[in-house]
């Protein structure tokens, strides 16, 4: 008997009949051939989130991103006109990497008036125009206006900077994001600027880790020892049910129930959480931004105001998870091969006004890492078994609808690309 109502069709999965209910192949997550296609069909044909506007506080602020899945590095910069632009991070002369510090393969950030190539000193304005060529007279009919930096499509939504690496995006960023994600635009992202950023190289396909974040069927099992024993028993007995699942094009979301830690009996909560009034779900005390976060109904499209968290997975590799306690975090999965990716996670809180608030954020951030590390290592084990090819298909339950949707979307996009004559 479901604790929370399901759609009239009897299940979330059957509410979206195109998904089917058959067991699913994870070939897409262990095949080098599929990965080669996925790079072109997905990562060069989708808008990709690369950073927040707060990372570019002034005109001339820039950061670079290494996008290995597309074999490129980009530089994102706020121009003298305050507009944010993105370029392939290479000099138009002989292709030297333009912006880097000490280690050419590592990302960097800073502020400058113009870009100067470290090789022969060619210079570029922040709008990409080539402004200076060393010994220009030595060249043969060189027209500098034809040698600006190679632009990358770039647009901003809700303070998130997206790029598109294709020649001509088939959709504007807003059309790509669609109605469900678009309804998050009024969330006060610009007021939640205290950031805790994590990074790991994970020995697993990007979709396999994403699966562990977009279903909570695993939570009572994998994370059982995180909690005092009594709470643990209650969780395992009940299992997990989401409040709501929703799909919109390639994007997907779920809301799950919350707990009110301060209402739990003392033996069901870590003593340090009670002392510092914070835990995985966030600080117990409201920040000044809390009312503005709670006012955004788009964070819970099922209408469940009692939600604890809602995760929106924005195609292909960007997740935003909203916590009822008035903060949010993001996930990024940047593939580096068919069996490895870079995982990034950023937690954002209202800036702490005093030591107690800072410590509450630290508590949440540390607890978050304990959970994430459990997921991280588990999925590495999945990759080793998937690669062995023992299983051809896997059954997926209704609480795994988002797993089903992710892999179907990936397969559909690769097949569409091939139908259009695309190759790896």
């Amino acid at each position, binding site marked *: 008997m479901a604790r929370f109502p399901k759609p009239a069709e009897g299940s979330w999965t059957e509410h979206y009949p195109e998904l089917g209910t058959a067991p699913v192949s994870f070939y897409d997550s262990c095949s080098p051939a599929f990965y080669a296609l996925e790079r072109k069909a997905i990562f060069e044909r989708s808008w990709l989130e690369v950073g927040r506007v707060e990372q570019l506080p002034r005109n001339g602020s820039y950061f670079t991103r290494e996008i290995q899945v597309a074999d490129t590095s980009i530089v994102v910069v706020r121009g003298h006109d305050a507009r944010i632009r993105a370029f392939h991070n290479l000099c138009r002369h002989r292709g030297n990497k333009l912006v880097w510090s000490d280690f050419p393969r590592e990302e960097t950030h800073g502020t400058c008036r113009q870009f100067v190539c470290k090789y022969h000193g060619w210079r570029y304005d922040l709008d990409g125009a080539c402004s200076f060529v060393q010994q220009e007279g030595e060249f043969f009919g060189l027209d500098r206006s034809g040698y600006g930096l190679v632009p990358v499509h770039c647009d901003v939504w809700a303070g998130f900077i997206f790029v598109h690496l294709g020649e001509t995006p088939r959709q504007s960023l807003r059309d790509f994001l669609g109605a469900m994600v678009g309804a998050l635009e009024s969330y006060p992202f610009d007021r939640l600027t205290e*950031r805790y950023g994590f990074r*790991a190289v994970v020995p697993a396909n990007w979709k396999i880790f994403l699966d562990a974040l977009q279903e909570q069927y695993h939570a009572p099992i994998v994370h059982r020892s995180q909690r005092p024993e009594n709470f643990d028993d209650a969780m395992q007995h009940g299992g997990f049910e989401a409040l709501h699942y929703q799909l919109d094009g390639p994007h997907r979301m779920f809301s799950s129930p919350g707990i009110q830690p301060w209402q739990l009996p003392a033996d069901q909560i870590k003593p340090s959480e009670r002392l510092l009034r914070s835990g995985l779900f966030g600080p117990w005390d409201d920040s000044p931004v809390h009312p503005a976060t709670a006012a955004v109904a788009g964070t819970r499209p099922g209408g469940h105001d009692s939600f604890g968290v809602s995760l929106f997975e924005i195609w292909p590799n960007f997740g935003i998870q909203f916590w009822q306690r008035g903060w949010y975090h993001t996930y990024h999965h940047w593939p580096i091969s068919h069996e490895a990716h870079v995982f990034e996670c950023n937690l954002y809180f209202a800036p702490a006004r005093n*030591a107690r608030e800072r410590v509450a954020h630290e508590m949440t951030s540390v607890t978050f890492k304990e959970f994430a590390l459990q997921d991280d290592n588990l999925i590495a084990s999945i990759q080793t078994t998937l690669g062995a090819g023992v299983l051809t298909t896997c059954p997926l339950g209704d609480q795994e609808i988002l797993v089903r949707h992710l892999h179907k979307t990936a397969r559909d996009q690769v097949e569409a690309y091939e139908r259009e004559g695309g190759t790896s």
Partner: protein
Amino acid sequence: MGSNRAEPRLPSPFADLEPFAELWSLATERERYARRLASSMEEMKTFYAAMTPRLDAVLDHCDGFPLDDMPDDATRLLQLVHSFIMVSFPVEVWGRPRIPDVGDAALDRVIEPAP
């Protein structure tokens, strides 16, 4: 080091926590996590037990300063609370420094506020 008594690292009302400051007043999560993995349960339990009854007084002291203009000794005191949080999982939940079944997986905190 040497035989001379070192300058106190913490504000004088917190002299009782002074023995922990050298090991646990650490500025970044990476340093605190590394210290946790390098520590015995006995060491962490002793530190945890010393901190627990002092948390309120420590936070009252730190809350007397703006976060962006905190004296060095108060900053080190606040870092002790961060380290208390870091050892809370081994002490309260895991019974060991490392998260079970996590092997050598790492998740580095690369961006964080100061202090």
